[in-house]
């Protein structure tokens, strides 16, 4: 590394459910060395499960347990992992939910979050966890809920970047939740976060709530919220016809879309790029990223799972958390 280059951020990736495709795709992603170019990667999880992942993925790498973040290896053939013994290797089988896997993941998620909160790591990435395992371990609550006004789900798929004003909420409740204040506050958060990540003054398109953005909420809540944001110098337009704004973002008229509800944004993202998106929680001061796919128990252990999504998440986390902006995904 040259002396003038700024220190690469430490990105901690948890290996996900040990019975799923997490360990094998993390192994494949790791040995490409691509995450190392943008970050200093470290894993959180079970060294045993990870060795199994290396074996399944048929890659050349040594799994090395580290006790802290000093002296992480730059060699992509050395996989550094923080293993606090949370997983008993005897208690899980590839392809199956397990209480042990759920308990271990709860511990790893907590540790990752703590390290990010303390500033020890710049970003966290989560390989897929199994809600079945977490349920068995009575630990479903470790999955951070999104609270409108505080945190928002952002999905990234190439040029399409969609932040959701509301998330897991019945559709009828969405209509009552939308307000001028919430719109304004979300736009401020989106603007500030993108600027921090290295995309200064993003152009934001706000999707309307109603067909053609011509309903009561569009006029009474969204439009004034957008106006207030514009007065603060935020580059934002809307509310725009929800059926047009996502395509306009794909065509780079906007850098991001503020979607009103879960399906509005998810339909656009999954229609546009089903096989390539990652999710970020916007709001907390640190960056926390997950991939869109699940544990894929049906193909776990076969070594055929595609690692590109997790690799892109690891690369993106490195780039964004160091303020270097969004990067092109590797195909």
């Amino acid at each position, binding site marked *: 590394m040259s002396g003038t280059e700024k220190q690469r951020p430490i990105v901690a990736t948890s290996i996900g459910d040990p019975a799923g495709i997490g360990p094998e795709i993390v192994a494949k992603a790791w040995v490409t060395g691509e995450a190392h170019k943008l970050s200093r990667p470290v894993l959180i999880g079970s060294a045993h499960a990870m060795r199994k992942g290396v074996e399944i993925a048929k890659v050349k790498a040594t799994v090395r347990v580290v006790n802290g973040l000093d002296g992480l290896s730059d060699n992509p053939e050395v996989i550094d992992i923080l293993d606090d013994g949370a997983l008993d290797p005897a208690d899980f089988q590839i392809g199956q939910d397990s209480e042990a896997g759920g308990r271990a993941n709860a511990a790893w998620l907590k540790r990752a979050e703590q390290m990010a909160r303390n500033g020890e790591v710049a970003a966290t990435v989560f390989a897929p966890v199994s809600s079945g395992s977490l349920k068995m371990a009575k630990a479903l609550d470790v999955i951070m809920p999104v609270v409108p006004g505080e945190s928002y789900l952002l999905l990234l798929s190439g040029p399409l970047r969609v932040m959701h004003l509301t998330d*897991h909420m*019945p*559709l*009828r409740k969405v209509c009552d939740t939308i307000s001028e204040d919430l719109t304004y506050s979300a736009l401020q958060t989106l603007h500030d976060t993108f600027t921090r990540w290295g995309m200064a003054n993003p152009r934001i398109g706000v999707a309307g709530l109603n*067909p053609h953005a011509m309903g009561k909420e569009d006029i009474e809540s969204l439009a004034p919220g957008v106006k207030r944001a514009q007065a603060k110098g935020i580059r934002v337009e809307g509310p725009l016809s*929800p059926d047009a704004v996502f395509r306009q973002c794909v065509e780079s008229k906007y850098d991001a879309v503020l979607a009103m509800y879960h*399906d509005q944004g998810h*339909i656009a993202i999954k229609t546009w790029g089903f096989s390539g998106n990652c999710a970020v929680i916007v709001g907390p001061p640190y960056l926390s990223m997950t991939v869109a796919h699940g544990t894929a128990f049906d193909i776990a252990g076969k070594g055929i799972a595609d690692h590109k999504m997790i690799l892109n998440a690891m690369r993106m986390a490195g780039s964004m958390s160091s303020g270097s902006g969004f990067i092109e995904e590797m195909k």
Partner: protein
Amino acid sequence: MGEPAGIGGEIAIKAWLERKKYKLPPFFVIGDPHWLAAIDPQAAIREITAPSECAARFKLALPVLPLRLAKAALPGKPDAGNAEAVLAAIRVGVKLAKHGAISALVTNPIEKAVLYGAGFSHPGHTEFLAELTGATKPPVMLLACPASGKDPGLRVAPVTVHLPLAQAAAQIDRTRIIETARTVAAALAGDFGIAVPRLAIAALNPHAGEQGALGREEIEIIAPAVADLMGIGINAQGPFPADTLFHAGARRRFDCVICMYHDQALIPLKTIDFARGVNVTLGLDIVRTSPDHGVALDIAGQGVANPASLIAAIHMARDIARSRYDG
């Protein structure tokens, strides 16, 4: 004709110019020949007095069944003085289709705000056509994007159309879902040549309500409607989380997605392909399609309008008419 101040005339002329490339069947415009000539003075336009003359004229000129505008149309500036002619063009088209003089009617976009000033009182084109044709059941709007290359295309039909989201969510109704799905299934069989159409029924809430945690409409209304549909022999499945239904793999598994509200249907359609969406009205006794875009007043008169959606609408009208009338 559609709104004469919009892009309708321009895309009709462009479609005629590309008639060979896209193998378009003979079509004619119901409208003012002066209006078309003003849009493109070079265009070959030929007045006809009856639809029966269309096929012979079509090779050398765009046939026009004349219907005079009261005022000269200025691109981008709709004139309420022409509202009556816009409505008359639709009435003439419906009458010709009803009498069998034409196989199908393709309608160019209208500017409703202008028509309301002239006493038009329908929420949209579709409802007006339902009245003109004397439809006994509410027609269903089907939106389709044709397959191209590896992309399997997409068909969606919303249960509610121009309703604010809160009302659409509150008015989700078992009977309405069943009626929509029945109309779609019958039309896919009769008009699209799909013997046993596979219908996916979309959920209303995120994750299809997650067993009631994120809304109860799936349990109380949509799932019972799906069961009823299966009971009457319709291949319907669901309710599925709406965000899982529109990637290419899912679109290969179903012939149409029944959507619960406007944008659930329109977002996937327009995110896939802005240019070639087609709007088909199901449940009428005439064949009617239209391009799935508006009057585009902002670009009217500049010569940059894209005829792809109108061309796709003409193709689909021809295909439906063939299935329906030639069996």
